[in-house]
């Protein structure tokens, strides 16, 4: 899937994946897609919850070798 920006949040624990995602999103325009990678198990629920609270759209979510990947479109 295409993305406009990639955020590597692997190795970071709560609340960092969400905090960094917000910062990255702030610099993007509505409609652009942020791809987030995280290894924190909490992120599995945190990223979708954050996207919902911040009115972004979670387009896709996968897991590969312990890395959770999310594609979030800025609302």
């Amino acid at each position, binding site marked *: 899937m295409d993305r406009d920006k990639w955020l590597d949040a692997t190795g970071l624990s709560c609340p960092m994946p*969400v*905090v960094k995602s917000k910062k990255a999103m702030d610099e993007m325009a509505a409609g652009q897609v942020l791809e987030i990678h995280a290894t924190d198990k909490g992120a599995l629920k945190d990223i979708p919850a954050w996207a919902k609270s911040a009115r972004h759209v979670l387009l896709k979510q996968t897991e590969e070798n312990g890395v959770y990947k999310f594609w979030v479109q800025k609302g």
Partner: protein
Amino acid sequence: MSKRVAIIAANGTLFDAYKVFNIATAAAASEAEVGIFFTFEGLNLIHKEAHKQLPLPPGKEAMKEMLAQANIPSIPQLLDMAKELGVRLTACQMSMDIMNIKEQDLIDGIDVAGAAAFLDFAYDADVTLTF
């Protein structure tokens, strides 16, 4: 209307700091309006010197190693992030008087107020937490 989170920080160990700032930054990063009211030992968390070397709870000193190894931000870093995300930090005037803490002993970027001011903020909060 964005959500509002009101937090009372009434204790001053390293664990308390993480509990308060983790949830405050997570909420602020999720677009909530967040305000923290620091009272009694909670004032440690925004004290210029104390916040850099908060004690572990009695009996938990051995966890110091584990915390250092875990990939988590330090309290000063979390505080900066909180401020950057717009979290409001308010020190309790009365606690400051009792514990003989002056405004200049506290970090920059904080307000000083009383219970009424905090309640005014908390009445309209969606979530109110005490640590």
